[in-house]
């Protein structure tokens, strides 16, 4: 095949895929009555949707950071038998179909589920409540954070925490003063992705939490309901989410470039490629 023909073929394939990817976004903005968007989003229905989305995602992200960070640190810095199995387990929700995550959560915490009896005795009902949304979002979004966090902690030069220990700092102080600050860039990048995934979560939420307006209806679920009730509103929510996702992507890119410029501060006298100074 000639050079020109090969380039033409590449361009053709790229053209088709990029057009396909751009089409829904373009169509969304074309079809939405953009002038009406502020009014549509002022619909009283939206207040509950946004409130539920904000509350559930805030709690979910807090849980992800609180539990995910130590988990990632452990998996990144300790080597033990079964470690790779645990890492795979953490990554599992990435490849699990969201609806399967939903039904799994139902099987665990539903009335007839694994902990059904215990929960019932304690008077706790989880399915179709706001807490169900929190759990669903946490479940699907945590691997995005933990995986990146593991990588961030692994990229910290191991000499640095070692130096910290020889200087009298115990493992906790070393984590807090050395490992965490140095991994911070990667942690933020991972969290940004987790946040984006969490905001957009649909499948697990609708199965486990249902689409209860005012209680479990998040922005994506809102689109689903408004498809029939008020199509224009559904479009408007879509536009809102695209803008939100776009901002998140932009933030991620900015954090990534900031990290790169921060770490290339080695002195020209450095003879080794180590990241420490």
């Amino acid at each position, binding site marked *: 095949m000639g050079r020109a023909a090969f380039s033409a073929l590449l361009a053709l394939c790229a053209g088709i895929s990029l057009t396909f990817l751009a089409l829904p976004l373009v169509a969304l903005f074309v079809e939405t009555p953009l002038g009406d968007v502020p009014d549509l989003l002022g619909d009283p229905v939206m207040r509950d949707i946004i409130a539920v989305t904000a509350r559930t995602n805030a709690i979910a992200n807090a849980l992800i950071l609180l539990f995910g960070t130590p988990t990632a640190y452990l998996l990144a810095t300790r080597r033990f038998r079964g470690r790779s199995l645990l890492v795979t387990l953490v990554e599992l929700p990435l490849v699990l179909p969201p609806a399967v995550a939903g039904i799994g959560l139902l099987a665990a915490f539903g009335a007839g589920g694994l902990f059904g009896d215990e929960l019932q005795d304690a008077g706790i009902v989880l399915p179709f409540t706001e807490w169900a949304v929190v759990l669903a979002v946490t479940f699907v979004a945590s691997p995005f954070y933990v995986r990146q966090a593991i990588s961030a902690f692994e990229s910290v*030069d191991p*000499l*640095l925490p*070692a*130096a*910290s*220990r*020889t*200087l*009298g*700092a*115990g493992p906790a102080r070393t984590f807090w*003063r*050395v490992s965490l*600050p*140095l991994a911070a860039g990667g942690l933020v990048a991972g969290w940004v992705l987790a946040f984006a995934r969490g905001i957009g979560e649909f499948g697990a939420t609708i199965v486990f939490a249902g689409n209860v307006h005012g209680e479990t209806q998040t922005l994506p679920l809102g689109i689903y309901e408004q498809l029939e009730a008020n199509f224009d509103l559904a479009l408007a929510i879509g536009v809102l989410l695209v803008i939100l996702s776009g901002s998140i992507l932009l933030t991620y890119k900015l954090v990534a470039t900031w990290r790169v410029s921060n*770490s290339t*501060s*080695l*002195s020209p*006298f*450095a*003879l*080794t490629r*180590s*990241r*420490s*100074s």
Partner: protein
Amino acid sequence: MRAIAGLVRPDAGRIELDGRAWFDSKAGVDLPPEERSVGLVFQEYALFPHMSVRANVSYGGTERTDELLDRFRIGHLADARPGALSGGERQRVAVARALARDPAVLLLDEPLSALDAHTRAAVRAELQELLAELALPAIFITHDFRDAAALADRVGVIVDGRLRQLDRVEEIGRRPADAFVATLTGANLLPGIARPVPGGAEVALDLGTTIRSGETASGRVGAVVYPWELTLAATAPADDDLNALAGTVGDVSVEGGRVRVRLGELVCECSPADAERLGLARGAASVATFPAASVQLVPLDDD
């Protein structure tokens, strides 16, 4: 070094300071690094890149920060980040940081190897001063015997994890225990086969000639003779008691006021005056003579 600091756990053995066990495999003692009183200066320094020099130095303890910044002449760099410093400056920060904790022992991992030749000499002198002033037990690692000769009281030579010789530095440089230590300390090593004779041994060198040694041995040996024990002459002397090896002059270089001459397989040393008198230049023929008493015999490594 890492084992002493507690960063690596040996399979067996005992590490103690002043009678207090830091590690004892039999007694099940293994203190974590933060409970051992060490000041470890890493070869790559391992300064915390996200902290200022002052924060780095105070990491182990804040009482002596200003004193240490002054002592190591890095006070003017207190607010700088390690990334902006030169190699020599970073090393001073690393040493200052290690001392902030008032350690009981100072560990230096190849303190001179990451430096260029010019800085190296200066830092070696600084370290000499520091070690004398601190009166602190210090252990450092180097691959260059000259560093050890300049800085150490006692030297241990470790090859493949085995300690080959542990001695005062003068002894290591005069009475090497084996072939490796001999070449490490700058000696000539001539392999051959020894045969005991009255008064010592006769060694048939692989080179072809036979020389005599004051030591007794038999079988495969390495004959060790130091460059400064060799006397260069234009022709072989009449004296039968002296060993003589003839050869062609190769490299001639001046080092520290002495002239180093490569004669065939040997490295010899003489004064600049002698070098001129003998007309030592590449390609000239010369003879190196040395008494039997200066020939030491050591086991060869390939045995």
